[in-house]
């Protein structure tokens, strides 16, 4: 009887089924930037590609979800789910699509219904967005509202996470009952330790084209990045055009994918035929990039080697001139970054007064360092606080 052992609890149900996953796409829809690209990679082609990508995401798992946001010139708009039925249950949106689509038998019978619904919604909403308000020339040059779009996307992802897992939402609702930072911690840890079987993963893909620099939104952007980091949401960035340091940092901090995609330039080829040929190759290249580089969700990323450049530009832009600095000053209150030597006595971002020792503002960097070393050897760094500003 010693051999009898019934204590194989088998509580670890090997759920090889992948968790449902939410893909949120933030599409930069600045008309000016897209018009620059119109010859090589028009918005319509990118949209088509994104739709295939979205369909593929939905195809691999019945429970997968999708949300698409447009970060437009002066506002952020939902492309999918459509705001009106965004809050309503799935049923209502489906019946919506149902009455609408019933007229077009031919299309319906050849396309999977959920794909069709999404496609219609996105193209309708995008058309509304692009035709409704024509922004001023001044506004067009301003950077897209990426920080705002990210916040909305994160809020949506969090909401879906709570909806998907009633267990964590229970604990979360009790957590938010009593307000406090400790509850926030409890909430996030509940999210993290959510049972693996039901875990709901999400990721955010930012398709960025605008040339404008994002340093004006630096604080909002970084706050969103930290929130995403906490929620375990990777921020993937597909950059069309030249590199941006901030987005690369964002994706690096959240272990997302950052790739730049340069569409083959067709403007050089004069003839129309060549232009269309390279247009399709640009789209195909974009599609393949999406499918291989950005397709895997958090669960699959553990198994795959993700693309990405080895070196990340961690330098921050100074807030005063917007140029990238190797060594700068940091406001101790709001963590804004300024280039040296400092030119002001109060932080231009948060208005807190800065009293900076003369040594920082005037003396060369190399000299200051050497001084520090000497002091450390001397007497335990008595004046170690010399670099930080003291409120007046």
């Amino acid at each position, binding site marked *: 009887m010693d051999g*009898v052992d*019934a*204590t*194989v*609890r*088998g*509580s670890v*149900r*090997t*759920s*090889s*089924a*992948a968790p*449902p996953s939410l893909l949120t796409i933030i599409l930069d829809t600045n008309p000016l930037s897209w018009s620059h690209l119109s010859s090589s990679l028009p918005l319509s082609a990118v949209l088509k590609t994104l739709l*295939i990508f979205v*369909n*593929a995401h939905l*195809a*691999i*798992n*019945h*429970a997968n979800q999708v949300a698409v946001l447009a970060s437009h010139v002066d506002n952020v708009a939902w492309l999918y789910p459509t705001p009106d039925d965004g809050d309503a*249950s*799935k049923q209502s949106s*489906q*019946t919506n699509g*149902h009455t609408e689509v*019933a007229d077009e*038998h*031919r*299309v*319906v*019978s*050849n*396309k*999977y*219904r959920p*794909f*069709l619904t999404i*496609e219609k919604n996105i193209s309708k909403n995008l058309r509304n967005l692009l035709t409704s308000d024509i922004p001023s020339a001044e506004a067009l040059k301003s950077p897209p509202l990426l920080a705002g779009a990210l916040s909305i996307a994160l809020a949506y992802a969090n909401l879906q996470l709570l909806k*998907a*897992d009633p*267990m964590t939402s*229970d604990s979360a609702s009790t957590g938010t009952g009593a307000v406090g930072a400790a509850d926030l911690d409890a909430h996030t840890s509940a999210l993290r330790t959510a*049972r693996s*079987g*039901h875990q*709901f993963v999400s990721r955010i893909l930012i398709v960025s084209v605008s040339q404008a620099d994002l340093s004006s939104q630096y604080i909002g952007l970084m706050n969103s990045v930290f929130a995403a980091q906490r929620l375990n949401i990777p921020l993937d960035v597909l950059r069309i055009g030249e590199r941006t340091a901030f987005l690369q940092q964002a994706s690096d901090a959240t272990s997302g994918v950052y790739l730049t995609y340069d569409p083959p330039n067709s403007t050089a080829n004069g003839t129309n035929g060549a232009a269309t040929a390279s247009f399709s190759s640009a789209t*195909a290249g974009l*599609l*393949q990039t999406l*499918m*291989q580089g950005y*397709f*895997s969700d958090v669960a*699959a990323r*553990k*198994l*795959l*080697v993700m693309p990405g450049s080895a070196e990340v530009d961690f330098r921050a832009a100074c807030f005063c001139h917007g140029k990238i600095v190797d060594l700068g000053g940091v406001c101790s209150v709001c963590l804004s970054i300024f280039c040296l030597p400092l030119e002001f006595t109060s932080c231009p971002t948060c208005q807190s007064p800065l009293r900076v020792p003369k040594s920082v503002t005037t003396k060369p960097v190399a000299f200051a360092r050497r001084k520090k070393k000497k002091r450390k050897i001397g007497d335990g760094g008595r004046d170690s606080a010399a670099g930080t500003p003291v409120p007046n």
Partner: protein
Amino acid sequence: MSLSSAVLDYLQAQPGVTFKRLYLQPPTVLAVLRRMLPHLAKNIIMAMLFMPEPFLEEDLLTWIRAEARPQRDEAMTVLEQLHILTLVPEPPTPRAYRLNTAFASSLRQALMGGGSTNSFGVPADKDAPGPKRTVEELDKWARKQWEAILYYMVGSAEREYSREGNISSGTRKLLEMGEFIIMRGGRADITKGGFTFLLQEANAQVWTLLIVYLENSESVSSIHTKSKVIENQSKDIEQLQMDPVEMLSFLFMLGSLELGQDYNTESLTKTQFHMLEDLHDFGIVYHPPDARGRFYPTRLATTLTSSDASLLSNPNSSLSMNSGKGSIILETNHRIYTYTSSPLQIAVLALFANLNSCYPNLVSGKLTKKSIQRAVEKGITADQIIDYLRTHAHPQMLKNQPVLPPTVVDQIRLWQIEGDRMEATPGFLLKQFVNANEYRETAQYAENLGVLVWRNDREHMFFVTRIEQLQQYLAKRKTQAPRR
């Protein structure tokens, strides 16, 4: 994964030609992708789908992390078994993988739209005669039909529940063929397989039954001579002669249809139209008797290609029968409480629990040694009971880790083992072989078949659970022997 593996097993047994035809239909490809592949395999397919060149094996290996080797092997095996990936043997170039062309083009078609295959169902005309059915009506219908089948099976175990639902003779025969029930003297007796079936989740039950349906359509049609007359005459499953590929495609198509929408039957093939009748009996589709030209898929159909996880995550979509939100609370003192008023769930519980009180929305009882051993005697295993309790656990229970109190789980197993001191295996003893060689080869063959239970090399005898194939094998040996 039990349910998709059932489908997977069925598919893997199919010849390569079947796959070629199956993959011509976008819904099939979509369903295969969604239900039957490991997560990594899906990622591999998507990466390769729009790749102009074959994927070099070397690149594939670098793409997947070294520590994910078990998952990679699993993914590649499944992909090759389902004939989705093939190794391109090109001597000058390095080894590369290529997607099955039919699979790739169907998947591309599914993702991008287009084509004119009508593969996602043709909705019926809006102004067709006859009343429309609402989603609620369809749910009611599906539940009624499906529960009738389950009732029938439970009823065959517990007399008092019998004959509440009326199921067609075809369904009854199918249950018998699937060895869920055995007819003994005009009375149906539930088998071990039947209990396994009952304790599964609804979606898995549907698939299990459908696979029996598919398997039998095939085997039966190969036994009987093909005659169109019989096919039209009777809808008894025994006389079905249908193409399994068309049947499977139809099932996968049903999985991609929209609930609450009626579809035209005109685009269906003869086989598929014929299937409608049987699926109507199961509650998977609703084929209105007053409007034969159209049919409604029910929730059982539209969730065919979704996984169980989605049913859990979306409580609205789950059938409120015995799936969806769990309702069982099991305490460490072996008491069991179930928030249910469904006679079916109560009947299933009564199979292994001692129920003592019943309220309008709550049943309470106790797991006792007697009740568990009674169940074990009937052929229910402890693991089945534990699995059932776990999958139907109340949300409050799910907060615990592990979900069920370990003491109770261990106790259930111990109670089973207590009765298992002696294991009886019905089978056949083979002895008195002509020579050692014959003994060795036959025993080896039996072992390869997986039917060998015990062998004694000194006495030259062994014991097998099944003998049909061995008989053939021995007969073949005999005929071959003189020639040699």
